[in-house]
């Protein structure tokens, strides 16, 4: 089985500072993978490098296409939806406009309309607030909106950067439940970066642990969750 996303020897730089030191990993189609690690380990940078939002070298291949020379917007147009840290909500626009923006690359306006309805079914709270300025939503609602906006692309691959950040534990459970459903029902491959390792390992099937810009551990999420040494030394629970 060939991987959907194949990352080889990825190195990324912020000015003179090197943030990733030769990362290699692969995502299988339909998988739900989590990238774990402490603050500053390079998780966000990895996601940003995939979308060419940070200077990097190495090879990133998505369904046979090299991403290295493409602009961020062209990478997104290949079907890679990225929910950034801080959610990237268009706060001055309405909830519905945010959803429409998620589908901007699509040409099938009928499909977009029906997908917006589908999102309202997934996330009823968004329907209640569809004419409201997105900036007035609570943190949890904004995270729902960010996930829904990403799904509006009908992505093949979805990248999520710390979706649990700043949310109450109950809401995080909700959200992760929805992510699992999207992965299973809509056949969207998901890569989720998390600090909340325990929850992420429950959700994911595969896990990578990253420390100071290097992958130090990889395997089935179950195995990593059950390995006490790994948990203590890298995941801190």
């Amino acid at each position: 089985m060939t991987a959907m996303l194949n990352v080889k020897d990825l190195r990324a730089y912020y000015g003179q500072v090197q943030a990733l030191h030769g990362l290699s990993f692969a995502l299988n189609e339909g998988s739900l993978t989590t990238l774990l690690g402490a603050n500053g380990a390079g998780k966000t940078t990895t996601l940003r490098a995939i979308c060419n939002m940070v200077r990097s070298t190495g090879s990133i291949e998505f369904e046979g296409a090299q991403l290295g020379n493409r602009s961020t917007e062209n990478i997104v147009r290949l079907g890679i939806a990225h929910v950034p840290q801080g959610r990237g909500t268009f706060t001055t626009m309405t909830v519905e406009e945010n959803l429409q923006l998620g589908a901007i690359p699509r040409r099938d306006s009928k499909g977009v309309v029906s997908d917006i309805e589908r999102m309202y079914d997934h996330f009823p709270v968004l329907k209640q607030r569809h004419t409201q300025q997105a900036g007035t939503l609570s943190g949890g609602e904004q995270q729902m909106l960010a996930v829904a906006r990403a799904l509006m692309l009908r992505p093949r691959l979805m990248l999520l950067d710390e979706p649990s950040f700043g949310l109450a534990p109950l809401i995080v459970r909700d959200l992760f439940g929805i992510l699992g459903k999207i992965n299973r029902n809509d056949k969207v491959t998901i890569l989720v970066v998390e600090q909340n390792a325990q929850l992420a390992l429950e959700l994911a099937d595969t896990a990578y642990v990253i420390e100071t810009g290097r992958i130090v551990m990889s395997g089935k999420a179950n195995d990593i969750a059950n390995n006490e040494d790994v948990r203590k030394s890298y995941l801190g629970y």
Partner: protein
Amino acid sequence: MELFTNQVLAGIATGAIYACMALAVVMIYQAIDHLNFAQGEMAMFSTFISWQLMQWGIPYWWAFLLTLAFSFAGGILIERLLFKPLAKAPILTNVAGFIALFAIINSVAGLTWDFTIKQYPTPFGSSPFLGSQLISTHQAGMIGVTVVLLILLYLFFQFTRVGLAMRAAASLPESARLVGINTSWMIALGWGMAAAIGSIAGMLIAPVVFLEPNMMGGVLIYGFAAAVLGGLTSPLGAVIGGFLVGVFENLAGTYIPGVGNELKLPIALALIITVLVVKPAGLFGRAIVKRV
């Protein structure tokens, strides 16, 4: 009372022009966070193009439309050639770029069409509007064209895909790229539209101020005043600011002793400074509702 009504209506008519200039300035400010000091010169140059086309025998409205297209393309070209390379440059580099653009356009216009004052036609005529002595048909035309333009722009930004994408690119460029919007082209499009809007202002005001390379100097200052008054982050504010400045300018010139025609311009500058000191975001500057 008739004098008052007359001055208010005349103010609304010139205010329409200030509103267009302010809108053009705000569009570019939203896209690249800089004030386009050359906006007036771009409008002046467009107006000369339309004049030249009419000299060649092309009827007014065809010349008008061709000038819009020329200005739109010219705006995009200026952005691609001059300001795209400066996108990451420090603010003063950009300011220097705008001043250079100002000087170049002004000189090229002077070189091509010389600096003598030219008559510019109005398609509306200048008889009293509907037999009333309060406002001329040209003034009514200025207001009418501006209102139509504003409605079209509103529809474009509110109800089209590209309009939505442009708004997104202006408000949050990084997020916009992450939903697949080519923000760089959105900026170029903003320049093109701003240039076209400015050219409308130029062509409408030319019969009033006469056509010459420095015709837009004063107009642009009022446009800046309007944009600052309404709030540089608010297109609607810029438009309302334009009308307010137009009316204010006329009333001040009429009723404040000693202002007259000569001191109208300092009034605009005083207005800019007052707004910046008292309410820097302007009347309609973005008040983001945010829950943390």
